[in-house]
């Protein structure tokens, strides 16, 4: 009896961890997706208006891309930490 309850509790904890990890990465990628879309959209608009600035803007664009994309990985690391530590 107690064994069964303990087993169920353990599986519930595992399920909770899985949900936490998925939520962390999912919500992180939601935000990062919007952010990256914004960056590239603005880049296209800027280059369409002033094509001669493309060279200067490319560096800034990739800087913004990497800074935004990293947000997903903070979610991933947080989720993995929850998985390992809890």
């Amino acid at each position: 009896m107690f064994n069964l309850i303990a087993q169920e509790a353990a599986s519930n904890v595992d399920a909770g961890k899985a949900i936490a990890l998925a939520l962390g990465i999912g919500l992180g990628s939601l935000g990062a997706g919007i952010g990256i879309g914004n960056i590239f959209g603005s880049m296209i608009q800027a280059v369409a208006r002033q094509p001669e600035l493309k060279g200067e803007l490319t560096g800034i664009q990739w800087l913004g891309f990497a800074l935004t994309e990293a947000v997903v990985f903070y979610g991933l690391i947080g989720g993995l930490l929850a998985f390992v530590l809890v």
Partner: protein
Amino acid sequence: MRRLSALAIFLWLALPSLALASTSENPEEEFNPEHDFELGEWIPIHLGPIDLSINKAVAYLILGTICTIALGIFLMRARIGTKNEVGRRQAVGEMIYEIAQVQVAEQGLPHKAMGLWFPYVAALMLFIWTINMLGFIPLPLSTETFEIFGVELPTLAVYAATSSISVTLALALMTFVFTHVEGIRYNGVRKYFKSWIPDVPKAMYPLIIPLEILGQFMRLISLSVRLYANMLAGHMLILTFIGLIFVIGNLAIAVVAVPAAAAFYMFEVVIVVSIQAFIFAALSAIYIGSAIEPEH
């Protein structure tokens, strides 16, 4: 000749499949992509409480250092071309130099610090690019072995030294220390720490000062975790897609899994490797530059 080399590269890249095929023979072994990121001691070196053992990441770092030096000498130091011609090697070398100067160093470093800190930033970019790139070439640096035609060979595995947080944290710590040393050296202790505080009413100080101090340490974390998590997630994605074949246990899934893994591999090699090297160097330049010449 070109076709021959393309074939050789293809076979080299296809070789790890042999290793994967051989491990699938013992079904008790559970597939776990995290297993590839564990660091076992190869040559134990213990100095008191300090663990200086040579492990997988250290081996990759040593190889990466040798490759970076070789790349620099090969592209930029050797006598290249005849007379005034610009050879292909020199063109590549100049392209890398120009990216390091225009895109990375001039974004952040003020002119007076260029001579001292351009070499650091450029070396950082080339070094991180090389160790990231080495992470996507299958190398026989592994303790696992597999048998082919009766010969024991080490497994070809993909592993990047930068997918270990100790490596990226060490790189980020260098930038962190240099930032504050240079800030104090150029501005003096008092002026430098004063430049951290933005222009706000005095009543806001108890709120702002802890946040600004925390922000300095957040830079350290964001710089190291960005590179580490990018490389770890990239490798795990590829391994998980290949691993789907063994988890589901049906060879038909390979029709989907292998092209998906190959697509992620190309994405990582073409975009992520270079972007992460560029971003680490550019942010280092910006941090050092903003410490040398604070805005207010």
